[in-house]
């Protein structure tokens, strides 16, 4: 087979597999950024945005954190409509809301309120990224990974000349391989 024909097939494969891979590439890269920062400690949770605020609430009159007291706290923070349940522990009560909680220190009256918002779309992408689904999805994601390998390899031979793999392309490819290797070298 002539080089010209080989290159034409290479470019066709690169183009079409690239089109097929774009959905999964976006899913893995967007959720990858989120999981990367979650792992680094920048996010409290990969699927939910969580924010915290400190507040002061009155202590229970008889020292007992019962449902009446819980409702009085929720009245103060205007979250009565979102009440789910509460538990008591050693010196504290934790009130669960549909989107967060209020944690009250029963010795000081200091409280922490968590509010959480669902990251719709990203939550589903994280589910795919973690492969929580397993079953057939394991094979599908393997197939995608093979497709990505093919896109990478065929990508090396798309262009000819000084921008191709024998010119500028070689330098850029080398940089792309050396950079992660350097991280391994210096950080492990």
């Amino acid at each position, binding site marked *: 087979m002539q080089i010209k024909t080989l290159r034409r097939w290479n470019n066709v494969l690169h183009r079409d597999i690239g089109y097929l891979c774009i959905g999964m590439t976006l899913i893995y890269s967007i959720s990858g950024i989120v999981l990367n920062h979650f792992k680094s400690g920048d996010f409290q949770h990969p*699927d939910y945005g969580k924010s915290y605020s400190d507040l002061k609430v009155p202590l229970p009159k008889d020292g007992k954190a019962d449902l009446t007291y819980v409702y009085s706290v929720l009245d103060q923070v205007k979250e009565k409509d979102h009440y789910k349940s509460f538990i008591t522990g050693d010196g504290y009560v934790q009130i*669960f809301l549909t989107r967060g909680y209020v944690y009250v220190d029963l010795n000081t009256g200091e409280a922490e309120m968590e509010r959480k918002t*669902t990251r719709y*779309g990203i939550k*589903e992408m994280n589910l795919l990224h973690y492969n*929580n689904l*397993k079953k057939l999805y394991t094979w599908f994601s393997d197939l995608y990974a093979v497709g990505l390998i093919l896109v990478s390899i065929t990508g090396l031979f798309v262009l000819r000349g000084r921008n191709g793999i024998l010119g500028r392309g070689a330098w850029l490819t080398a940089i792309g391989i050396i950079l992660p290797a350097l991280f391994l070298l210096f950080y492990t």
Partner: protein
Amino acid sequence: MTKKLVPLLIVILFALVSCNLGTKGTADTINNDTTLLAVLTFDKQADSCIDKPVIIEGTVLHLCKHGGKRMFLVDGTDSIRIEVTAGPKIIKFDDALVGSRVRVYGTLKEERIDAKYLNEWEAEVVKPEENHSVGIHTGAKGHEDQGVQEKLDQINGMREDLRNSGKDHLSFFSIEADNFIDLK
């Protein structure tokens, strides 16, 4: 026409997935040998139910944020926390379950911790990189953000418990969930 329909279909598909992706379970048929457990009496009942089907109800106190494969149930107070792990049929435990009352259908599992395990765990903890899969999960507030010293204290505490127990191992019980229902 097709050119206009394809992006529209993609958007509709994602919207449907986002709206419908839930983790609510439905109960399977219950076997006659299934034991009904209670959170507050769990420690007394667990010994006799190892590797047997069980049902337990409780309030979700905490969920493992790394993949949602583990949750802890309490009942009114946090003094007793029951660890529930997601079995193969469960995709994940969603963080929205925190504070909800759930009924879990599963199998009771025992994990035995002996001196060898504690030594291996200690070796893992002192390594620079954290390995979340090794060690005992307590479900206590902030347990996932424990530092090295706190983990070493936990290991030494278990060594003492092991010595005091007069046995060659400590038993930790958990439930591997096949299914669960959010009772609200």
